[in-house]
C-alpha cells in the first residue's frame, strides 16, 4: 500500500518484526484519517473490523482494524492516549459498528469517547467500580471470590 498520501494527517508508520505494520496517528487527526481511508478510491476501507484497546501501563493504545471488501486490504491505525485523561473522539459517525466497540472499551478500560452520546457499561453491572481490563485493576468484590461452603 502506498501510504505517502497520508502524510498530510501527520502519520507515522511503524514496522516491527513479528508484528503487523501500524499507522500511528494523533487522536486529533483520527476522524479525518478514517474518513479519508474510508472514502478514497485507492484505499476504500469500508469495514471496521474491531477496535482493540491495550493498556501499556503508562498510556493506552487503541488499534482500529480496518478491512476493505473491494481491495482485500487491511490497515491498522494506532492511537496513543494519555492514561490520566483517557479521552478520544468517537468514530460512530464514520463507522456505526464502532458503537458497541466503544461502549465495551469504555466499560472495560474507562476510556471516554467524546461525542458518543449513549456511552454505557455494556458488560459490567451498573455501578461497578473500576475498569477490569486495566493492568492495575484489583478485584475487590468479595461476592465474586470462590467460596466453598
Amino acid at each position, binding site marked *: 500500500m502506498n501510504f505517502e498520501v497520508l502524510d498530510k494527517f501527520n502519520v507515522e508508520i511503524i514496522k*516491527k*518484526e*513479528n*508484528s*503487523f505494520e501500524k499507522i500511528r496517528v494523533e487522536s486529533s487527526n483520527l476522524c479525518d484519517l478514517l474518513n479519508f481511508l474510508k472514502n478514497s478510491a485507492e484505499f476504500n476501507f*469500508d*469495514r*471496521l*473490523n*474491531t477496535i*482493540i*484497546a*491495550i*493498556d501499556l501501563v503508562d498510556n493506552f493504545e487503541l*488499534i482500529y*482494524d480496518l478491512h476493505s*471488501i*473491494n*481491495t*482485500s*486490504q*487491511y490497515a*491498522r491505525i494506532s492511537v496513543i492516549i494519555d492514561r490520566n485523561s483517557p479521552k478520544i473522539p468517537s468514530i460512530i459517525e464514520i*463507522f*456505526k*459498528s464502532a*458503537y*458497541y466497540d466503544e461502549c465495551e472499551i469504555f466499560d*472495560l478500560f474507562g476510556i471516554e469517547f467524546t461525542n458518543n452520546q449513549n456511552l454505557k*457499561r*455494556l*458488560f*459490567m*453491572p451498573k455501578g461497578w467500580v473500576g475498569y*477490569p*481490563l486495566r*493492568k492495575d485493576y484489583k478485584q475487590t468484590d468479595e461476592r465474586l471470590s470462590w467460596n466453598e461452603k
Partner: protein
Amino acid sequence: MTKNRLKINIGPQHPSTHGVLRLVLELEGEIIKSCEPVIGYLHRGMEKMAENRTYLQYLPIVDRIDYLSGFFNSFAYCNAVENLAQIEVSKRSQYIRVLTMEMNRLSSHLLWLGTFLLDMGATSPLFYTFRDREVILSLFEELTGQRLMYNYYTFGGLRHDVSDDWLDKVGDFVKIMPKKIQDYEDIITNNPIFTTRTKNIGVLSKNSTLQYSITGPNLRATGIRVDYRNSKQETGNKEHNSHGLGYLVYPELDFEIPTAKTGDSFDRYKVRVEEMKVCLKLISQCIDWLKSNTGEIISPIKQHLLKVPEGEFISNVEAPRGVCSCYVKSDGSGNPYRVKWRTGSFYAVQILPKLLENTFYPDLMAIFGSLDVILPEVDR
C-alpha cells in the same frame, strides 16, 4: 405518546433468545416500535483470563467463547500464536484442521437451522437436524475426547493423528448427508408459510451490513461475495497481506462461495443451507487428501514452556457466525500481554434495533433467528 405502548422484556430467560439476551421492546399492538438489547449476562472475562495464564493454559478456555464452533476459536488463537512465535504447521495438520473446522461449521449450521425453524414454529426439523448433528458430535468425541470443548489443536500441530477408520466414518457420513439436507429443504424451502414469513423481512442492505460490520453468511446473503477462506476474491487485487485471506490450505481446495441477493431472512437461510453443501464438498476433498498422504502432526515444540517473542498479531477466521478475529500481543514472557476477541454475533446484536423497528412481533423470531446470534460469543 407512550400511552398506548406496551413495554415488554424478551429475556434474559426466554425460549427464543438462545441464551441470556434481554431485549426491551416497546410494542404498539403487535408492532415493535423500539428495541434495546441488553447484554452482559454471560460475561466471563475471557480477555482478562488470558492475562494471568500461560499461552497453553489459555488454550482450552478459548473453546468456550463459541461453544458451538470451538475449533474456529481454537484455530484463531493458535494461528495468532504460531505466527508470533513463527512455528511451522505441517501440511497434514493443516488438512486435519480444515476437515475438523468444516465439520464444525456443518454442525453449527445444523443447530442453527433446527432452532431457527423451531422459533418459527416448525417442530420436526429440529429433531432431524439434531439427529444429524449428533453424528458429527460423536465423531468429534471419538477424535478429540469431548463433544463440544475439543481442545484438540496445539501450537504448531494437533494432539493426535486421525485414523483411517475415523476418516471412513466421516466419509460415510458425507455420503448420506446430502439426502438429509434435501429433506430439510423439502420440508421448508418452498413452504408458503415459511417464505411469506421470511421473504422481505429483516432486509439488510449492502451498505448497512458494512456499516455495522456484519460478516459471515449474513454478509454474503446481501450479495457481497466475501469469504476469508477464499484468497481468490472476485473483485480484489491479488496482493493481499500474507495473513488473513486464504488461510490454511483453503487455496488448494476447490469450492465456491454461495451468495444471495436481497439480504432478507430467507436469503440468510438459503445461504447457510448452501454453505452446508459446500462444507460437505470440502470435507470429502480433505478426506481424499488425508487418505493418500501421510505426515507428522505432533508439534516439535514444548507447549508448556512456550515463550513467544515480542510482537502483536491479528488472525482472522471465517467462523460460522462471521469473522472471528483474535488479537494477541506478546511482551516476550510466557503469558499473553493482551488478547482481544472479535466475534460475529457481537455486531449482529448491535444491528437488531435497526432491523426490528416497525416490524411485527412475530418477525422478531424470523429476524433474530436468522442472524444466528449466540450469546457466549457476544459477551465473551
